[in-house]
């Protein structure tokens, strides 16, 4: 699960869940920026995992629905995918950089602004209309597909697993996106 502390209300449908993840992503960016140089890599990896879960869920589950339901959905989704592609490139570059270098922080900041803006666009131009056009059932069912992506790599490692944090990424960050995509597709096939 992404985050279900006592503090959060349970997510009701997929839009709720994604908006909640937007808030967590924003939070994690602040934590990476604020982390001291030694801990920055580990916090960054947590961010990368959450971004992978989130973007995969959007690409595989939400955007296809938006494309079908929204008037002008093709164009809206194409714009979002372009933004996601650019963000992924930045994420991959960051992944190869020394997290303690000043260049890392400046690129991280660039990524943060790109992701925040992307999230605002989604909320305003996509999610708003999904709630109008999609049935409550339809939106609630999609929560399961997002959870499948989460299962590939939990964002909050279990207590005692901290030392293994680095291994969860297991290779370059883009490979993580691929593994999540497979998991979501599998979950969706099982669903039908």
């Amino acid at each position, binding site marked *: 699960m992404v985050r279900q502390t006592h503090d959060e*209300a349970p997510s009701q449908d997929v839009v709720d869940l994604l*908006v*909640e993840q*937007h808030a967590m992503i*924003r939070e994690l960016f602040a934590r990476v920026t604020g982390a001291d140089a030694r801990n920055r890599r580990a916090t960054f990896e947590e961010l990368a995992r959450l971004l992978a879960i989130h973007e995969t869920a959007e690409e595989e589950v939400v955007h296809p629905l938006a494309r079908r339901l929204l008037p002008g959905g093709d164009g809206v989704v194409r714009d979002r995918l372009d933004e996601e592609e650019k963000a992924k490139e930045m994420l991959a570059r960051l992944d190869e950089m020394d997290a303690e270098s000043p260049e890392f922080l400046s690129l991280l900041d660039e990524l943060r602004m790109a992701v*925040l803006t992307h999230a*605002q666009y989604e909320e305003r131009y996509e999610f708003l209309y999904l*709630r109008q056009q999609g049935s409550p059932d339809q939106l609630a069912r999609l929560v399961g597909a997002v959870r499948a992506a989460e299962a590939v790599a939990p964002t909050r490692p279990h207590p005692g697993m901290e030392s293994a944090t680095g291994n969860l990424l297991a290779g370059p960050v883009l490979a993580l996106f691929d593994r999540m995509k497979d998991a979501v597709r599998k979950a969706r096939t099982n669903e039908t």
Partner: protein
Amino acid sequence: MAFNPLQERGIPLDQQLRNWRELNVTPLDPDHADPYTRCRVITMNGIEVEAILFSHQFSRNCLDADVKRQLAEVRYIEHQQQKAVNWLLPGAASPLETTIAYEQVAVDLTAWVARMEPDPYLKQAYQFGVLEDFDHLYRYANLYEMVQHRKAEKIVDALTEVMPGRPTKFHHRNAADNVRDPYDRDEASPLSKLHALTIMSAEQQTMNFYMNVGPQYMEPIARQLYQEIGLVEEEHVTHYESLVDPGETWWERLVNHEYNECYLYHSFMETEPDPKVRAIWELHLNMELEHLRIACDLMRRNDGREPEEILAPELPNVLTFEPNKAYIRELLDTQIDLTTLGAGYVREAHERFERMQEQIHGGEKPPSERIIDEHRERFGREYRMETEGPHPVESLREHEASRA
């Protein structure tokens, strides 16, 4: 050290026009900017909007074509100033985040003015109003967590507490009871005039903002909350605008507007930590000095009076955004149950107040109450940020029972 805007030289008007590149300001960082920098931006936008609207009204009431042209020249520059200032707000922030920042302005700006105001009747007007904006902040903060899953402390950054003030449902008074008595233009201290103009402008901008932003929301509770608080903002504008002496001449009012802009840009220049934003305050101060000079000339020519007769010999103390937590808590403790009757304040719910309450609520809970109920239902608690201990008013504490 003292700064007297009447003695300073500004930028000549014909050198004030900016091109598109110069107007294209870099917005504040939505997550890392100083919350009080954002408060200064919102305040100055309200001040510029008032300057513009005032100038339009003046022009519509002005028979002299030369004066109309002079007003138009200055007004165009004021419009550019408004664009440069308000465009500092980041597009990556949602309208609700900006709303919460507006309420933080209303709390900490009004509290500062209440603390500094020399006239007791005017001071009371600010003390009365600030407890209402303080409550609005709490209601919007609960809406924010509900629709955006974020906490308002990310915006106000523990500088301003978030908890109930005078409950919004009690802000709906008979409209006639919102009209205060004005200060006397010949007796009032120049500082009092600046305060009244500043708070009136800030509330007017808030009113306009909610008018336009409210219907952009889809969630029924969000739409309704903006309607309800939007109507209270109308009451606040009525409350504060009636403090200004309506016997001031148009020329005198123009001078007061320009002088107030000099005062605020100077204050913000002195207190701004962000160098890029400070450069804008400084540039605009230098523009306003010239606008003030022009206004003073118009007053001398048309009113036959010297501006020095109505203005302070030097700028008052720098207006500062800073936490006012202890002050707000003291007001909560002593003034929570006030309402207005005529131009004064009373503690009992009088007949006219009761009638309005019955009519507007129609026997149901208003949106400002339902937002808290819905939030509790969904999260099992309310959103509050009480950094200085439990709420000073026992009955407004969040009881364990209500958290279950």
